[in-house]
């Protein structure tokens, strides 16, 4: 049995993206879910499953209470930070394919700018010694304490191996900000940047400039998943889940997989890519747009290589000359991504993929039949291929 084609995304919803939502994370989650259900033409009474991130502060039952969902047959959490994003949809699709649930809402909502900011130095209790605490213990005492720093360690080695430069990373930021500039929902609407702006922005953690780092955002996004059959009767053309996958790599850690193998690769993403192509029976030439997780620019380059869009070390050429801009070789993140639209832990990218399939994006790529979506990089991750029916 394959999951391919059994489930579809029927609705997408979101709050506004801001720097200070002024309301609770639970309220953001509930608002995003209601918005998504309306978009799907469904009501909370139709919902029998909820899935979110392990990292989310609002439990499935708390969201169910706010929505007035009478009861849940399926609830699940996906771990590893932003690596969970597509995993929530994968879990929903599995539940639907196996008959555990009929309609599952996946959500992620947080005050990541006005509340706990992920960009700040991480702190963990020295008195808890679970495996994640131990992983952090090999790093935090050295002041190696921020996601930017953890990614910079890979980026420096990648530059060394392949001769990539800060400007190559900068081209990713320029592309995302170009896309965001024409997206009214993007935080950086009408604020494009140049490569010179990127180069002039201050160091955060060398070799990363400020403009290599995604924003910190408040907001929520929800995705309604139901059977492909039922989705056909709902208002919007379904975005059929052609493939869904999770993946981790050898010696995998949360952001710190430095101890085995090659720092210029993302084996977890490589595994996700192989599974997606195999499940969907497609290859890199068959997708017209990609949503690549862009919390930090260097990993967009590595993803292009891991997913087979170009060879090892060739991504710097792939992104040159507007290669990943909306009119380029492979339009990446036409919504502006997390660098330009908002950082909602990858969930806003899934919503954009759905719009590309529906043909309703503000930066619509012509003739989209298949869109690849990825989740967090450097962590155990996940991915989707969404397909026009």
């Amino acid at each position: 049995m394959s999951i391919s084609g059994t489930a579809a995304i029927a609705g997408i919803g979101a709050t506004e993206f801001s720097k200070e939502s002024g309301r609770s994370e639970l309220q953001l989650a509930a608002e995003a879910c209601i918005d998504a259900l309306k978009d799907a033409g469904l009501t909370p009474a139709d919902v029998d499953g909820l899935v979110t991130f392990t990292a989310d502060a609002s439990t499935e039952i708390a969201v169910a209470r706010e929505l007035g969902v009478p009861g849940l047959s399926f609830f699940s959490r996906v771990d590893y930070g932003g690596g969970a994003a597509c995993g929530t949809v994968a879990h929903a699709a599995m539940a639907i394919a196996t008959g555990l649930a009929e309609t599952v809402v996946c959500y992620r909502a947080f005050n990541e700018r006005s509340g706990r900011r992920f960009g700040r130095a991480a702190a963990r209790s020295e008195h808890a010694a679970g495996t994640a605490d131990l992983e952090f213990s090999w790093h935090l005492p050295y002041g190696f304490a921020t996601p930017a720093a953890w990614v910079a360690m890979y980026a420096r080695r990648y530059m060394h191996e392949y001769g990539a430069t800060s400007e190559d990373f900068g081209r990713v930021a320029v592309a995302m900000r170009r896309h965001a500039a024409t997206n009214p929902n993007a935080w950086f609407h009408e604020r494009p940047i140049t490569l010179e702006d990127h180069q002039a922005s201050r160091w955060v953690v060398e070799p990363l400039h400020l403009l290599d780092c995604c924003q910190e955002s408040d907001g929520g996004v929800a995705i309604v998943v139901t059977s492909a059959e039922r989705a056909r009767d709902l208002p919007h053309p379904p975005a059929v889940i052609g493939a869904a996958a999770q993946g981790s790599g050898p010696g995998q850690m949360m952001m710190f997989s430095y101890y085995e193998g090659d720092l210029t690769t993302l084996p977890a993403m490589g595994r996700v890519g192989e599974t997606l192509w195999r499940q969907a029976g497609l290859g890199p030439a068959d997708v017209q747009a990609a949503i690549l997780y862009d919390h930090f620019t260097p990993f967009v380059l590595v993803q292009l290589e891991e997913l087979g869009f170009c060879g090892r070390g060739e991504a710097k050429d792939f992104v040159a000359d507007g290669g990943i801009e909306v009119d380029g070789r492979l339009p990446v993140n036409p919504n502006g991504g997390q660098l330009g639209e908002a950082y909602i832990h990858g969930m806003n990218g899934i919503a954009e993929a759905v719009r590309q399939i529906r043909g309703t994006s503000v930066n619509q790529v012509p003739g989209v039949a298949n869109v690849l979506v990825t989740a967090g990089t450097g962590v155990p991750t996940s991915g989707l291929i969404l397909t026009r029916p």
Partner: protein
Amino acid sequence: MTAASPRRGDALHDRLTVLAEELTALGERPAGPCPDPVNAPMIRNWTQALGDHDARWAETAPPAMIQVWSMPGLNRDKPGTIADRILALLNESGFTGVVATNCEQTYDRYLRHGEELRSTMRFGGLTGPKRTGLGEGYFVTWHQTWYAEGERVAEMMFRVLKFRPRAAGGPPAKGRRARPAIGPDTRFFWDGLRDGELRVQRCAECGRLRHPPGPMCPECHATKREHVTVSGRGTLHSYVVHHHPPVPGFDPPFVVALVDLEEGVRMVGDLLGCPPDQVRIGMPVEAVLQKIDDDLVLPQWRPAGSAPKPPPAQGAEPAAQGAESVAQGTEPAKAAAELAALSVDLTPTFVISTALATRDFTPVHHDTALARAQGSTDIFLNILTTMGLVQRYVLERLPGAVLEGVSVRLGVPAYAGDTLTLTGRALDDRTVEVRGAVSLGDHAIATVRLKG
């Protein structure tokens, strides 16, 4: 450091030059009083705090105590130095940083208990602007001379660098460095560091080395583990330079390194003693175990070959005080020149009690919160104590020698929680070179002159 561009027509430089000429013209001027005669209670406080057990101090004063006699104590209206006006002008002009760079003392004779002292100061000069590792700055020098009944008994040259701090990535974060969570599978590693060993787990069945460690060998699934002590030699696999945001306990920019150990495992740590723009992937590095406090030692890294000579094994130390003292030349010439190392644990109590015993009440030597607020990692050893420890080290290693002078070039701060390791080498009968190293690098390089 190199000379900065000529300052012709620079108004500040001109004002400084005029002021320096004025101060020089003042000549030798009386300094603040020496309130107490040379006395046993102050000497006892000093010898106890510094751990100096030389029997001669029952009759005479330790020579390195000379500056203590003229210290103003905890006195809010304390008289300054003759260089105060020039230091103030530099301060107002943005050269707000200050670091002592040199202290040279000459002892004409040892002082007897009961002697009354007075001291004078004279301005010694201004050089700059110079570009230094800390930023652009001026070196300011002054001299202090001590007299007993009109007889000169000691002199000191003191030099500071007043610098314009380079723009950093914001103020240092408050708070302390994160501490590791330690579990049953990782405790051997952290315990080893406290015992001076850098340990890597080895599978007791198949011999596979593994870092970070874990309870089951992923190769053969044995749970029986042992560890090896690794050499600490490696090469830099990758690195980052952290600028922002603030990290508690760190002063940006700082370098975090991923090291390929020669034994075949990788390890993360800070790269110390290497300016960020000189870090290169592939550079050889070596481990240095940095004592954070009594409970925590961290494995850190520095460029290979930048470390002071490792101290000899602990057993070597008492030999220096025994009958076959290295000073008596019973060893072959080359070996005889090397003095056994002395390690001093810089506990907070040590740092504070020595500061107070030297009548130095500057808060950075006893107030941790204030020291951190000023950008230091912790409270740190004062210079009067560094001078005293150099004296103690040389006289313990060369019993019977009489000190003529000590010249110290100051390096990195010696923070509480660290260990100061003194090593020395007799260049000839009258000259000893001493190096005081802490985990950050060289704290002091001293040349000690002995009377013939």
